[in-house]
Every structure is written in C-alpha cells, then in structure tokens.
C-alpha cells in the first residue's frame, strides 16, 4: 500500500446480529493488512447469561475453503462483555467461526481492525 502512513480500516462483521449455535462471519479480504484484531462486543444476552461462546479465527487460500488459524477467544455471555483476538501473517481472507454453548443466545457487535 502506498502512502507515508500506514493504512488502517475497521470493518464491522456483525452489527447487532444474534448468535446461537454455530455461526460464521462473512469472508473478509484483507491481504493488504499485516495485522488484524477481531473484537466482539456482547450488546445483549437474550438467553443463557453467564454462559460462553468460542470464536476461532479462520483463514483461507481462496475464500472458499477455511481452516483454523489457531487463535481463538472466549466470549462471555454478559452484557457489554468485550473480547479480542490478534492475528498476523494470515494471507488474504479472514473470518470467525463461532460456537455458542447450548442455551446461550447473544446479540453482538463484531469488528475487525486492520492495519497495513
């Protein structure tokens, strides 16, 4: 990326979405970025307060086939809980694979902060 300062961009991956069961965020392309931080903010807990969800960072060679990158974060089902996961050297595509514990339903704001 050209420019005298580092490019940066934050993408909202889930805007008030309800997560339960197994959820994937839409693929996000960011080959230009050298580093990324996923944030998940629990806006509301509809069901199962105190329970948990596990979000695993996934990468892909083509946006079609996905594999766990190895980084993950525990999401606490508590209003205004905020968690993050940092990754780098991820190639071109990023997404979150989220497994929400049975009986837990959360409304989330998930963002991806990217920097060249």
């Amino acid at each position, binding site marked *: 990326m050209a420019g005298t300062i580092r490019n940066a961009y934050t993408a909202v991956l889930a805007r008030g979405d309800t997560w339960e069961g197994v959820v994937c965020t839409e693929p996000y392309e960011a080959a*230009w970025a050298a580093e990324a931080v996923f944030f998940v903010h629990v806006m509301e807990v509809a069901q199962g307060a105190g329970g948990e969800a596990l979000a695993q960072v996934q990468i892909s060679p083509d*946006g079609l086939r996905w594999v766990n990158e190895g980084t993950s974060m525990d999401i606490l089902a508590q209003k205004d809980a905020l968690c993050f996961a940092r990754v780098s050297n991820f190639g*071109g595509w990023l997404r979150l694979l989220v497994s929400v514990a049975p009986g837990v339903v959360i409304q989330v704001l998930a963002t991806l902060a990217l920097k060249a």
Partner: protein
Amino acid sequence: MSPPHTAHTAHADPRLSRYDPLTRIMYFDDFDQGMNGWTCLVGNYEESLATMTRSYARHTQPMLSQITHWDSGTHGSFDGTYALKIATRPVAGERNTAIKRVTYRRAARIRMETYFAFKPEASELKLSDLDVRSVGLLFDLQDAGQRVMPHLRYLNTLNGQRMHRWQFKQRSTQFRAIGARGETVTHDHLSPQDWEDVPGAAQDLCYNEIPTKINWHYLRFDFDLEHMRWLGFQCNDQVFDCAGVDSIRMPAMPNLSCMLNLAFYCEADTAKRTFFYLDSVLLSGEF
C-alpha cells in the same frame, strides 16, 4: 523528425489517460492506495439497531480485494493489485452497497467514471453467468428544494432469466418513521420494485467464460446538479440517451444540504455471493 501527434495532457498521468474528467476533479479514488473514504451504507436507526430496515441491516463492509481465485491465483485490478469489492451474502435477492459521502460547492454538471467488473463467487465449476442479478450506482443529492436520487443499474439476470439491460427508477418505497422522536425516517430506495428500462436499454457485457476470468468495463455517468437531471451515460462502446429518464425525487430534508453521496450496489440472483469490483472511481465537475 517531429514526434507523432500522440501527446495529450492526460498522458502526464497514465492513470488518468483512460478517463475523460471534466474541468475539476473532485476525487480520483484508486483502490491500490486504500479505501479512500468508501464505507458501508447502514440504515437509519434510533435507540436500537432493531429499528433499522432489514435490507439495510444486511449490508456489510466493502473490502480491498486482489481478486484471487482458487484456480488461477491473483487476478489483480486494472492497473495494480487491489480493487474495491462489494460482496453480497450467499442468498438469492441479497444486495450490498458501498458509499462515499461528500457535499458539493457548486450545483454544476458532474461526471462519474469508473472501471468495474462483476462475478459470482467461484464456488461451482460452471459458467455461472446467471448468478449475478445486478450491479449499479446511485447518487443521493439535495439542493434547496428537493432531495434527488438518480439510480442506474445493469440488470444481468432476474429470477434465472438473462436480462442484459440498463435500468433506472423514479419511485421509492413509502417513508417510515424511525423511533419515537420524530427526527428520523427511512425508505428503501434500492427495493426490487419500480425499475424501468432506459431507452435502448440492451447491452451485452464481457462476462468471459468461467467465474474466475475478469474483464474491466468502463462506465461514465453524467448529471446536471443545477437542474437535477440526467445527461446520459456510457458503458464501453455504447452511449445511452437519457431523454425521459428521471430520478427518485422528494422534498428537501432538514439536514442534508448540498449532499453529494455516491454509492455502488449489487444483487445476487441465486444463493451464491455476488462480487462487484471497482478498480477506481473518478468524480469530476464543470466548475
């Protein structure tokens, strides 16, 4: 020996030589340089995101893509690595958008130019030329008296039928109040209804033979801000006369003075992601 007569001022910058800007360039966004202020178009809301119109709540963030495919690697953009990518979700009828918001300093003639391409996600080993429903652009404009929203789209497919035509719309959905304060309203101007063919609407584009081959197309759209009317548009070698073509119009709204928003959008016709790529966008004006 004198040099051949090929010199042109635009050749001083080869990136501009493939464009025909008016006298003043308002912005020239090459996505090799970054996002350049292009962002997600979210719907209006008050107190809760649940008040947002669902079709807007589904919109996601644009991205910078190097257009990499499983079979052929990185395609790249017209003159570099990255293009702006607008991607729908893999649901038939889904749409997505990207928007840039500025204001105008004089109600003059303006010209939008871009090089674009579109493809469905390469998730099947098929031609897949009927998976993308449409790609298009809109301006959201306001002068002292009215808000005006010219919409133009290339309808590729509709419910599995090949359409290959340019369309516009003059009507939007009814306004709906957002929240209880009486401060915010919404309307779904990108709803599937009320699209009409422009005169001489038909055009075949260069789809190319499989979902992983991309060909860039030129698009020019001219509009008169002073009289809020279409002046015409061009895609590749076809120039379209816009006599009788108008915009969605409504009374001026309280807080949108001199608004000059440009948005691009795409729709999927099947349960496959539609990808709309823009190599660069140039907005110029006659002032």
